[in-house]
Each structure stands twice: as structure tokens, then as C-alpha cells.
């Protein structure tokens, strides 16, 4: 054990300060210190993407960086994607409409990856969508309805086929 160090991280728009062990990863910080359990842990070695969050607006794997490294930076988690309490982002709404999830475990990471994609590329092709979620493993959906949801959210598909 080593002495805790202080970190100050803006999470979903709110400044959060805490003392953490240096070895605390960002995802453990979010889950264990802030009780933001929407971000999930799947592999802790940078493959599955379940822990994806936006760091200063760009998606990263929160298992592959330490909270201490993020001091002074801004993090957006799935809990921060909706424009306001009680509302959903267009993408979240499209995930519901297109049945883009089942067990929901990879979903927060998928939403993060796709939120970033649509911010960069409002009209992505199917190939670009698959590339953007290539680092997010899902065992339920076969990805099809996730692709549909992103198309729907980007106005490229009137309604999902289900």
C-alpha cells in the first residue's frame, strides 16, 4: 500500500475531489469512489471496451489508466450522456428503439464509443460504425442492432427492423 494522493476530476460536469491509492484505475475510481456504477468492468486488460468513458471528449478505456493520471481532466460516463435528467440522448433513444442491447453490460461502453463516432462523423457508413465499435465486445447482440441504432440516430434509417 502506498499513501493516497489527491485527485480532482470533473465527472459529468461536476468537480469531484478524492484521495485515492495511486494504483486505483479510473474505472475503479468511478465505481468505488463515486458510486457511478454505470461504467462496467469486463477484462481489466484493455480488450473488451466495457469501461469506455470520454476523457476530455475522447473515448478511452478507463481500466487502462490510473485515476491519478486524470487529475484536472474531464470525464463523461454513461450517466452523463443524457442532456438532462429524465431525458435521453438521441443515441440512447435509438438504442432503445433498435433493441441495440440485451444484458446491458457492454451498453455503456458502446454508447460512449458511438457518441464519439457521431460527434466526429454525423453520417457514418456501416463500415465506419463497425470500426468505431470494433474495440467494444458484445456477446449478446451480434452487433447488428447496434449498427442499426447508430444509423437511426444519425438519421440514416427511418426505423429499425428489430
Amino acid at each position, binding site marked *: *500500500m*502506498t*499513501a493516497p*494522493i489527491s485527485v480532482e476530476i470533473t465527472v459529468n460536469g461536476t468537480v469531484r475531489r478524492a484521495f485515492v*491509492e*495511486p*494504483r486505483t*484505475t479510473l474505472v*475503479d475510481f468511478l465505481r468505488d469512489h463515486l458510486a457511478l456504477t454505470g461504467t462496467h468492468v469486463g477484462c*481489466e*486488460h*484493455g480488450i473488451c*471496451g466495457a469501461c*469506455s468513458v470520454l*476523457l476530455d471528449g*475522447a*473515448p*478511452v*478505456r478507463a*481500466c*487502462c*489508466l*490510473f485515476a*491519478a*493520471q486524470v*487529475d484536472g481532466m474531464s470525464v463523461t460516463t454513461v450517466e452523463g450522456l443524457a442532456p438532462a435528467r429524465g431525458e435521453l440522448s438521441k443515441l440512447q433513444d435509438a438504442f432503445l428503439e433498435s433493441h441495440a442491447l440485451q444484458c446491458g453490460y457492454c451498453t455503456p461502453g458502446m454508447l460512449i*464509443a458511438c457518441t*464519439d*463516432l457521431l460527434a466526429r462523423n454525423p453520417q457514418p457508413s456501416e463500415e465506419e460504425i463497425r*470500426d*468505431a465499435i*470494433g*474495440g*467494444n465486445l458484445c456477446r449478446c447482440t451480434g452487433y447488428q442492432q447496434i449498427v442499426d441504432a447508430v444509423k437511426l440516430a444519425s438519421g440514416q434509417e427511418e426505423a429499425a427492423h428489430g
Partner: protein
Amino acid sequence: MKAAPFTFHRAESLDHALDLLARHGGDCKPIAGGQSLVPMMAMRLARPSVLVDINRLDALKARHDAPDHVTLGAITRQRDMEADVALRRSVPLIAEALRWVGHVQTRNRGTIGGSLVHADPSAELPLAAAVLDATLVLRSQNGGERRVPASEFFVAPMFTAANEAECLTAVEWPVWAGAGVSCAFEEVAIRHGDFAMASAACQIQLDPDGTCRRATIGLGGVAGTPLAFPDLAQRLIGRRITATLAQEAAEEAAARSEPGTDMHADAGYRRHLAVVLLRRALLRAASAATPALAA
């Protein structure tokens, strides 16, 4: 999978980082992107007792364009290189290699320097550095700065010529001037974004008539380090890169490889892939350099 304990320092300056490295030696690791280091620490395969975060050091982000080379600061993010149109023109092999590297999330954090010092023999950026014989700029508190060519930098799997007190500060990538330059990067992995079972890269410059004026070739994933073959590349000079010539060069290169075996690919398959991929890379590059001459 929680890392062993360590103390954490946020480097305020390069000197600060170098001082920590000098004081703690092998127990101390610089961390930038951490895309390989953090998982290795989580598995406790790496267990530095001191971690120096160099992410805030602007000195390591500097970018210089010279006529014959581009210098990229060691913590330049892979994602930034990918999006860099000028770099795509001056050192196109970097973008070619990055097409195969990880995923958006890893490239957002991963740095050029991190990939090189991690020295995975199957990784893409080390192969690109080896093929172009990039120069790695290392600094330490006591030794000052030294410049190591890629051909000497990669020593063994996950092992480089950098000593424990040294920090990679920048990488100089040669720029090939003139017309007719093209490159290609080929690999086979079972999944996109994974480390390759084998990879091949080349950069060539062709005269308008298709004669090769300049060439460099290399292989990844088939030895303890990425391999470049300057002597074999030399033999391409003055000739047209035909399928036969590409095959010959690829076979000779592959013959010098020492591939290992794992659950996904045995040595024989890797060596075979090396031939196929290097031939394809050469032909693709040749075809791109001289579309009119391509068969």
C-alpha cells in the same frame, strides 16, 4: 487484476522525470499512454514501484518538420498522428501502420513512444520504425541525449537499447523527398486490431518508368524484434518490382526470420505469411507508385 502498489509522480518537467528515473532506476517507469503498461501492471507482469507520468510534458509533444525528417515528440498520440494530413504526406507509412493498430480508444491514449519502447515484436509501429530506420532520441540525467537508430534500438521481445535511466523523448522519421514514393503495410491477425501473427512493411520510390530507385522492407511478428532487410532492399534498386522479384525478396527475407509458435500460429505458418505479406506489400506499393505500370 489490481496493480501492485507504487508511488506516483506527475512529472513537472523533463528534468524532473529524468531525475526520478536516475534515482529509482529499474524500479521506475515512465507512463504516457499506458495502453500496454497498465494491463501488464494489472496482471502484475510489470511492477514498477515508482511511476512517472510524463503526459503533461509539452517538450515530449513537440513536432518539427525538416526537409529530410519529421520529429515527433515521444508522447504524440497515435490518434493525432492518424489525423495528421501533413504527416500522412511526409511519412505515409505511419498512417499505413496505424490502420492496423488497436481501436479508437487505445489510439486515443496510445503514444508513438509508448509503442516503440514496449517493443512488442508483433506491433505495427516498431515495424514501421525499423523499416524506415527511424532515430530514437533518448535522454537521461547523467548521459544527456543520445540518438539510437531503430536498427539498434530493438534488442529482444519487450527489450530495447534504452537503459533504465533513459526516457524516450522523440522519434525522427526519415522523409523521402521526390515523386514516386509509396509504401504499404500488410498483416494478418485473426481479429482486426490485434497484434499480427505476421506483418510486412515496405517503402519504395520508383522512377516514372517503374524502376526502383530506393526501397526498404521489413517483417514483424516473425522474430524477437521487428526485422528490416537493407541488403535485400538494395537488390531491388534499379529493377522493376515484378511479382517474381517481390516473391524472391520476400522469400529471402522470410528465410532469415526466426518465428515462434503460439496457439494461433506456428513457426511454419508465420514464415509462410511473411513471404505472402511482404510480396503483397511490395506489389501494392509498386502499383500505388506507378498506377499506369501496374499489371
